[in-house]
């Protein structure tokens, strides 16, 4: 017992029980698989970021000078496909979710550890296929693969990109399936549904979308690939097919996919805000059930992407109304987080800065979503930079801020090392400033009428100022993303060793050692308290409220 307290040089943990490439590539430990995913999605993030950089550089001047139209089309297509399917969709679930879901509910692993490893291999196969596609010419259909352009007219590598995304879809399905079974069947004694951390509720809702939505885009891509390869007429109007059917099937997945990206971030934000306000989350059951509500409503709004595509005006009316209804559970969350902050004892650590960033940016992204759900305004701003700015506020301002906040929050648990707090706060600030400078001008650009996906705007040179601002912001944003990567890597070697619970946070994952042992807990935990019992924690250890800072 005494040796355990005296902090031996390095305790046995999931990182040092085994060494060597084989111990990683054949691991079934959810924590190691999370790290495999972390390395892979970081790689793809920088590839997607590289394309974004080229896009922004091209738009620095009105003339199409850096790249030509064909290249530009490929750049924004591959930026979208890589970022959506190879970074955002797996980001929080496959990294933080993989690491934390079993620990938060007191389990030794996910229900199907080998399927978990399989899902990473599927992701890697899909990733290699995508890389091959990029290196041998790329694809130019837009990330949406709209037919008949993708099946008939595009002369780029549509089939390869389609297959890559098809395979990565199965990786996503298996992750979702694993989470649902784990959350249903692997909870520790006493971990009732109403004691689950909100991170778990968010992942449960995400998993529902993954298992019900992803198969639909999988079969849609099968049809696109079959149509392109065999010249069938399923979506080609020349042969009697219906391109609108493709759009319906595509958005049936791809709209809910946005919630695959944002819901896990909401889970992270719930954890972080409760911890750094030292308060029980306000309206626990509303926050929990609003995740499920978002998942359910999310399936009923897809055709708001098609208001100008020629759907019936009555259908548009109903989809508009249903799209508004998503705002209700989203607002429930934002108001409850705000109410949690009220009279809280707020600490401004880096994860909390990201959570604040999330709150503001998600609110702007969500409210501009209502503009787009309104039929009249949507007709005005469809396919303009307004739409681009809106969904980047959700996907980058929302999802990515949550991801970064979560990475900082759980980094001490994952690696057993503390990151440098000062640098982290600086990086959070840089990301926030850079993000707004990049994307806020795009709202104005779009409202003034600049269309998306144009590489040359020389007939409207008045848009250059706002585009220069946006590019400048993107540069700052890029630095903001490089910084965490540098100091995270630095901290793995030189960081101070992390205590088991550096934030004095609630949650079973903080009761294990940092980094955890392979099977997480020495004994199966028995839960007798509700989530976010910060009152009791701070009463029991008033001196430890603010350990790091």
């Amino acid at each position, binding site marked *: *017992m005494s040796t355990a307290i005296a902090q031996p040089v390095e305790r046995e943990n999931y990182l040092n029980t085994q060494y060597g490439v084989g111990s990683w590539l054949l691991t079934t430990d959810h924590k190691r698989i999370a790290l495999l995913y972390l390395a892979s999605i970081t790689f793809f993030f920088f590839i997607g970021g590289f394309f974004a950089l080229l896009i922004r550089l091209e738009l620095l001047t009105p003339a199409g000078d850096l790249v030509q139209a064909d290249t530009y089309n490929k750049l924004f297509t591959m930026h979208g496909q890589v970022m959506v399917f190879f970074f955002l969709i797996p980001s929080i679930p496959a990294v933080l979710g993989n690491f934390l879901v079993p620990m938060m509910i007191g*389990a*030794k*692993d*996910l*229900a*199907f*550890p080998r*399927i978990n490893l399989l899902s990473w291999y599927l992701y890697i196969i899909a990733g290699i296929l995508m890389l091959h596609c990029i290196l041998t010419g790329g694809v130019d259909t837009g990330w949406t693969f709209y037919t008949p352009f993708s099946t008939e007219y595009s002369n780029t590598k549509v089939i390869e990109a389609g297959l890559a995304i098809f395979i990565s879809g199965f990786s996503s*399905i298996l992750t979702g*399936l*694993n989470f*649902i*079974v*784990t959350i*249903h*069947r*692997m909870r520790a004694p006493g971990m009732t549904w109403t004691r689950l951390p909100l991170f778990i509720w968010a992942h449960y809702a995400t998993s529902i979308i993954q*298992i*019900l*939505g*992803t*198969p*639909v885009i*999988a*079969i*849609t891509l*099968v*049809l696109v690939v*079959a*149509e392109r390869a*065999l*010249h*069938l*007429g*399923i979506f080609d109007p020349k*042969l*009697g*097919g*219906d391109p609108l*059917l493709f759009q319906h*099937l595509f958005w*049936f997945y791809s709209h809910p996919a946005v919630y695959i990206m944002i819901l896990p971030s909401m889970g992270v934000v719930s954890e972080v805000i409760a911890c750094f306000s030292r308060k029980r989350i306000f309206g626990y059951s509303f926050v929990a059930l609003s995740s499920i509500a978002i998942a359910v409503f999310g399936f009923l709004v897809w055709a708001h992407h098609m208001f100008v595509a020629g759907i019936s005006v009555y259908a548009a009316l109903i989809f508009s109304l249903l799209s508004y209804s998503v705002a209700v559970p989203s607002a429930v969350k934002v108001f409850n987080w705000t109410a949690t902050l009220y009279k809280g004892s707020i600490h401004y650590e880096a994860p909390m800065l990201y959570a604040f960033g999330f709150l503001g940016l998600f609110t702007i992204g969500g409210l501009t979503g209502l503009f787009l759900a309104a039929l009249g305004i949507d007709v005005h701003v469809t396919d303009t930079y307004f739409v681009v700015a809106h969904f980047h506020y959700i996907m980058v301002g929302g999802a990515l801020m949550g991801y970064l906040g979560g990475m900082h929050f759980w980094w001490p648990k994952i690696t057993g090392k503390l990151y440098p707090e000062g640098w982290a706060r600086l990086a959070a600030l840089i990301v926030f400033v850079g993000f707004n400078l990049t994307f806020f001008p795009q709202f104005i650009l779009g409202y003034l009428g600049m269309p998306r996906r144009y590489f040359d705007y020389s007939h409207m040179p008045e848009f250059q100022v706002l585009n220069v601002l946006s590019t400048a912001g993107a540069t700052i944003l890029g630095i903001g993303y490089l910084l965490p990567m540098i100091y995270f890597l630095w901290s793995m070697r030189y960081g101070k060793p992390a205590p088991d619970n550096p934030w004095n946070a609630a949650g079973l994952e903080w009761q294990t050692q940092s980094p955890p042992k392979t*099977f997480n807990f*020495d*004994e*199966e935990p028995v839960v007798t308290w509700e989530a976010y019992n910060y009152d009791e924690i701070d009463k029991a250890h008033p001196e430890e409220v603010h350990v790091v800072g």
Partner: protein
Amino acid sequence: MSDSQITVATSVHEEVRNPALLHHFATEQQQRDASSLGMWIFLGTEVMFFGGLFCAYLIYRLWYFGDFAAAAQTLNSWLGMTNTIVLICSSLTVVFAVYAAQHGKRTMLLASLALTLLFGLAFLGIKGMEYREKFENHHVPGASFSFVKTVPGHPDEMANPRHAEIYFALYFIMTGLHALHMIVGIGIFIWLLTMAWKGRLTPEYNTPMEIGGLYWHFVDIIWIYLFPLLYLIDLHK
């Protein structure tokens, strides 16, 4: 508390563990429940996977009903019905297999699994015959596709070959995906047969049989929908 105490406690626990019980489950019941729920959720994803196709099929069938009816008449409903009966029989033998595994009846288990495999192969054989006939008559979508037939009930109206081609495209993709699932199912049942042969499916542990059976039934149900939708359009005329 000391480390040695924990080690002792763990090793006592290990002794009573069924070797089939994986390390991260606390009890066999928990493992069984997890596997079963996992298979049900997987089947849910399959419903959505086929659902996209059914949706496309229904829309085109509404739009191009006459052409679809004409195209469907080239299928042999008797072969389709035989296959339906074959699959229903295979589902029955699967039920027998699950029962036999739960009650430790080895001969019955082996016989039921072998019969299921036989029915599965028979289905694929008949399906192959049907596909061959489609190739011979140039009813496979693509460059050599040709379709000359009148719309049922309208002797003076020729069916639109483009629309008939959509029917055949959907026919091949839907039945092809179904056949692919059958092939996977046959693989699973060969694996189950080997397990049963080695005596590893017992009344205490037969989860693979149970979830393998769920999968087989599901693939059957897909066919139960495919058969009337693809073969029996406008049969009364």
